[in-house]
């Protein structure tokens, strides 16, 4: 990466941090546990890096490292989103149950 590209990447980083603080600051305490697991799943985005390594046809160490990265990242992504969904369903189950009776 050239130094200029680095500054570009830094710009993206800084803006994303601002977006993050603004957006996350509005999540109510009720949802802090799902927020934690959900944002955790998002941090599994390294999966795209792992895919590029695993699919590049490297041999030797790079191959095994890529494979390990891929497995770990996939666990993080799949597990993270599923468990978050499971938790969030609980929050809305009650709402849906009510909906049947009163059309709320």
């Amino acid at each position, binding site marked *: 990466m050239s130094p200029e590209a*680095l500054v570009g990447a830094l710009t*993206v*980083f800084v803006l*994303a941090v601002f*977006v*993050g603080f603004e*957006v*996350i600051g*509005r999540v*109510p*305490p*009720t*949802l*802090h*546990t*799902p*927020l*934690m*697991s*959900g*944002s*955790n799943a*998002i*941090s*599994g*985005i*390294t*999966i*795209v*890096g792992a*895919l*590029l*390594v*695993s*699919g*590049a046809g*490297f041999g030797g160490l*790079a191959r095994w*490292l*890529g*494979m390990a*990265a*891929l*497995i*770990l*990242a*996939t*666990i*993080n*992504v*799949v*597990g993270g*989103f*599923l*468990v978050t969904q499971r*938790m*969030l369903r609980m*929050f*809305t189950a009650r*709402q849906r149950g009510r909906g049947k009776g009163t059309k709320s």
Partner: protein
Amino acid sequence: MSTVALELSYLAAAVLFILGLRQLSSPKTAPKGNATAAAGMLIAVAATLLHQEIVGYADILIGVLVGSAIGALLAARIQMTAMPQLVALFNGLGGAASALVAGTEVIRPGTVLPGPAVVVPVALGVLIGTMTLTGSLVAFAKLQELVPGGAIRSRLLQVINVLMVATALVLCGALLAQPSSLWVLAGLALAAGVLGVLGVVGIGGADMPVVIAFLNALSGLAASATGFALGNDVLIVSGSLVGASGVILTQIMCKGMNRSLGNVLFSGFGAGSGAAAGAAAAGGAAAVRGYSPEEAAMVLTGGQLVIIVPGYGLAVAQAQHTVRQLADELEKKGVEVLYAIHPVAGRMPGHMNVLLAEADVDYEKLKDLDEINPMFPQADVALVVGANDVVNPLARSDNSSPIHGMPILDADKAGTCIVLKRSMRPGFSGIDNPLYAMDRTMMVFGDAKDTLVELVSQVKQA
């Protein structure tokens, strides 16, 4: 798929992550938010798979299948009370993946001699990622009670710590000189791993939630660093979103406990709590009288407004469904029931909310501190279920108390305060609770679930 198309897909993924997180701002839209974020991930993965640089799909297939199977299994099987551990574990895995990807970037075949603009983020990615992994594993082990939860501290550990920091710095310098040296990289990972272990070993088990939120932030930063190394914007954006989320959660928790992050990470608050607990149990038990569930049930049914204060003991006893039953029975009798949720009740942020949501409690009945405190004086009964520190009046009155200044729920201001716990042992902070000795307090000793089952049947009969 061309590079431009790939990057546009990544941008779409990043936008979906942001929109998803925005939808997490209300329980109603939150499930959609999670699905939105997952859709973003799917787009990013699909676009990557179609990219021209991908030549073989065999390894990918194996990796994705194995990973998905394990992830799905863990997500489906985990008990709600074990959520903190699971989040810690996932955190660690994400950090490890980031470290691996970042490291591979400099040692993979065909890499051209990378400049500092690549080496520095690679070093950061490996360092932060590996620390996140080992730190999270220790946190997991403590929470799962595979190792004792207390804070382990000694001079020796501190010396090792300093040595490791020095080693890591030296190795970062070495990596700049020899960017593709596998050994330097491995050494860096090792030092970071030891640092992660030592950092978390020195923190008391009950402080783990703060640690997990902090590790959450670190795993985001590791992903960001990897993004810098690969020049990949979606990694940078997602990583910083997660980093911001982790930092905000850490702040909220520290504020709820009235401590600074530095204090949590370096002071070993939980270290002495075992001893203190013993002393308190011995000293306090004599002063108070226990009541029977029958007596408590009579008071409960006589009230108009009952505020339930759940705490960590609710999670330990897994009594969330039984609490819900009790509330239902009381409501049938015309008693209004609300829940007072302290920001740090339990062992992770939002812990009580998740438990009670699992038991199908309407989230509009869950009131936070500012909302419920003015209502305690009007309440006939405050029913404290396995909570301790979050209702300790010393936080208000005793300047010398370690929890002084921590905002608490004013359960002591209710007409009667019924407390369900097993003994006079203190909670996480290890200090005595004068609430239990108050005149208007009724202690009902025993496992919270057993007591609640008893209460439900008593209230039914009343």
